[in-house]
């Protein structure tokens, strides 16, 4: 009887209730995605920690992060291993089919990273006829491919398991540039100015980063609560402060849900 | 004579009736009849491949025999009768029960290389007889002493000569206090130098009245120790009797030929005697 009651209760609670009861919001993320999430001597740093901490305050819960390799993060979300995907993830039509995005938190437009020493590349078009790289299965890679197709002489596109291998191969000189979202590569360049530099301006369509939840009734209340929190952060400038801290600039991102992403 | 009669009057402890063993089509033991009385020593001799080992292994039910019966101290070995003449294989437990008073010694010793001599002897006492460790140890040492190896208690098989290993194997079997001991060519794997010590232990056993069935190529041993010698050929008992009858009666041509092997090989001794006699 007790067990039955318990399960019934469990069914009654939606995810928001559960999170409140548990007192913690569990977030799956990969700590190899500076500046959003990375480990500095084992201490997690980045946008997600600061931003979600604030969101947590609004919900009145702590935030616990689970560090996972990217391939197993979305499966983890579907398997209820956690409530929200950190990342963040670029909003695309395909992904909206399957997942529920929060409000955007950063600009995700694609730009190129090059070797600091490489004078041959001044603007994105200069990669024509050369080899470039991107992260397999990332939306940035898709945009890179479209962009390359528009060039007079198409560049050879290499696909990497994750961006870090691409950066490594950039230093070996096998490729001349790596395509990734502006915030990421800006941070990379800032970290190792001796090695890397950003090719401005960004190419490709305007896209945004957001967190990802499950697309079901159970999760909806939680995600709405988070959206509300983000709006609040917009209002009192906490979001802007965090962006300034990590990107060195304030990005203007829509305060309403993105319904028709550019890609 | 009196010795033989004394045994003839003792009760039968092991009996085989019309025993047959086939491997596929190949009949290896052919309706053998055999009675072993308490404290009788039976030696099985015969050419290689004649079925000596198989017969012996049937007596320990290491081989399922195909037909016939083996009774150990009155109990049927290996099968349970149900109905008139239908029988099924007995359970391991039942087999072990009937077999509890049978000990066996192998040509290849089959000591367990990862245990010391003492370990080999006490293992079964601990696992099967469930003796207390110190009790088992006591009896184990006593047995090793009996075969003259008390000093080697802590040596591993790999560190002992073949003769010593075989004596440990005998001690291991004796520790279970069997009523019947089966030996399958206990000395064939040994250097000639080492045969003597093992035969000596077996002679002592016989003298103490242990019932033994011995497959052997050591004619001297058979002659001196056996009460009954059985000559097997192609799975059948071709001749049986006292050593005297077998070795000195006028044997069947097959037995004659078999013994000839040994006569040739010991020609030197023959010559020596002739000379000595010449001198005398």
């Amino acid at each position, binding site marked *: 009887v007790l067990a039955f009651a318990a399960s019934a209760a469990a069914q009654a609670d939606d995810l928001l209730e559960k999170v409140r009861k548990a007192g913690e919001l569990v977030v799956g993320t990969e700590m190899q995605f500076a500046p959003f999430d990375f480990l500095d001597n084992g201490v997690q740093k980045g946008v997600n920690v600061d931003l979600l901490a604030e969101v947590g305050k609004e919900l009145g819960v702590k935030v616990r992060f689970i560090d996972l390799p*990217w*391939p197993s993060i*979305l*499966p983890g979300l*579907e398997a209820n291993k956690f409530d929200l995907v950190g990342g963040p993830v670029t909003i695309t039509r*395909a992904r909206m089919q*399957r997942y529920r995005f929060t409000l955007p938190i950063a600009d995700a437009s694609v730009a190129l990273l090059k070797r600091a020493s490489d004078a041959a590349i001044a603007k994105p078009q200069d990669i024509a006829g050369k080899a470039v*790289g991107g992260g*397999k*299965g990332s939306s940035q890679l898709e945009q890179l491919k479209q962009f390359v197709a528009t060039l007079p002489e198409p560049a050879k596109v*290499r*696909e*990497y*398991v994750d961006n870090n*291998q691409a950066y*490594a*191969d950039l*230093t*070996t*000189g*096998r490729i001349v540039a790596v395509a990734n979202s502006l915030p990421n590569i800006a941070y990379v360049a800032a970290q190792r100015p001796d090695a890397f530099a950003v090719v401005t301006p960004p190419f490709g369509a305007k896209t945004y980063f957001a967190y990802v939840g499950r697309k079901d009734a159970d999760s909806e209340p939680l995600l709405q609560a988070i959206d509300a929190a983000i709006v609040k952060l917009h209002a009192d400038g906490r979001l802007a402060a965090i962006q300034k801290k990590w990107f060195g600039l304030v990005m203007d991102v829509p305060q309403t849900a993105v319904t028709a992403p550019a890609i | 004579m009196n010795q033989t009669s004394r045994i003839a009057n003792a009760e039968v402890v092991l009996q085989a009736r019309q025993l047959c063993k086939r491997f596929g089509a190949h009949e290896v033991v052919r309706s053998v009849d055999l009675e072993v009385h308490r404290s009788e020593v039976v030696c099985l001799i015969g050419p290689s491949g004649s079925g000596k080992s198989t017969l012996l292994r049937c007596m320990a039910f290491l081989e399922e025999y195909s037909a016939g019966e083996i009774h150990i101290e009155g109990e049927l070995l290996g099968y349970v009768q149900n109905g008139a003449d239908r029988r099924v294989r007995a359970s391991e437990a039942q087999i072990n029960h009937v077999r509890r008073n049978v000990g066996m010694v192998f040509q290849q010793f089959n000591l367990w290389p990862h245990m010391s001599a003492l370990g080999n002897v006490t293992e079964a006492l601990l696992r099967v007889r469930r003796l207390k460790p110190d009790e088992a140890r006591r009896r184990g040492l006593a047995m090793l002493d009996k075969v003259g190896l008390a000093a080697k208690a802590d040596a591993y098989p790999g560190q002992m000569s073949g003769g010593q290993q075989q004596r440990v194997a005998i001690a291991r079997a004796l520790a279970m206090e069997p009523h019947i001991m089966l030996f399958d060519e206990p000395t064939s794997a040994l250097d000639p130098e080492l045969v003597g010590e093992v035969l000596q232990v077996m002679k002592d056993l016989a003298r103490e009245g242990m019932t033994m069935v011995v497959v052997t190529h050591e004619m001297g041993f058979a002659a001196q120790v056996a009460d009954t010698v059985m000559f097997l050929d192609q799975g059948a008992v071709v001749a049986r009797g006292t050593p005297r009858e077998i070795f000195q009666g006028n044997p069947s041509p097959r037995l004659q030929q078999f013994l000839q092997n040994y006569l040739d090989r010991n020609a030197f001794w023959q010559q020596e005697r002739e000379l000595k006699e010449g001198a005398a």
Partner: protein
Amino acid sequence: MSFEPGIITERLVEIGQGLAITVGAWAGGVVIGMAIGLLIAVLQIFCGAWVRGLLRFYIELIRGTPFLVQLFLLYYGGPAFGLELEPLSAGVIGLGIYGSVYFAEIFRAGFMSVPRGHLEAAACLGMTRLQTIARIQLPQMLVIIVPALVNLVIILSKETAVLSIVTVPELTFVLTGIGSETFAFVETLLVLCVSYLALTELTSRLGLRFERRVGRFMLHRAS
């Protein structure tokens, strides 16, 4: 969690290419590995103490570090020491080197498993050490080491998945890629399982057949 086999059938060509690359890299690695491994094992027989010491160190070094790390250092670290390799060739060579030490150990064990007397008999008949290895030891040891070889070949088939970190589009890379693009995780993993099961099962069956063939004389053994 929906199940849409359609996603797989759409990308069948891509997957087929991935499988082809996996099998190719695997075969290449195995061949190279066996060759080097045999060489090492034979050198250990012929060479003096200090060469054996070097080989020993090579074995322990390669055996002691993950293939992932080795391949990463070979491919991304190579250029720093003037060693430029194409992804696939780097992968195959890396796999071969990685496998070589395990093959070497298996062969060494095999050589030792042949009774010393057989070699002495050959020596007394005036056969050279090399003839003895080729004609007496190798044929005999095969029977004994085939199961170990099959084990190792199967292990290497799994290691090919690592080649993805140097941008070789092998099966695992292609499928996980498709997975994270289309979110068809179950489907892709299923294909992955079936493919590898098929490969390993095929390998062990071939191994068994080979075992029987080289084991002819063993099967005849009376006892």
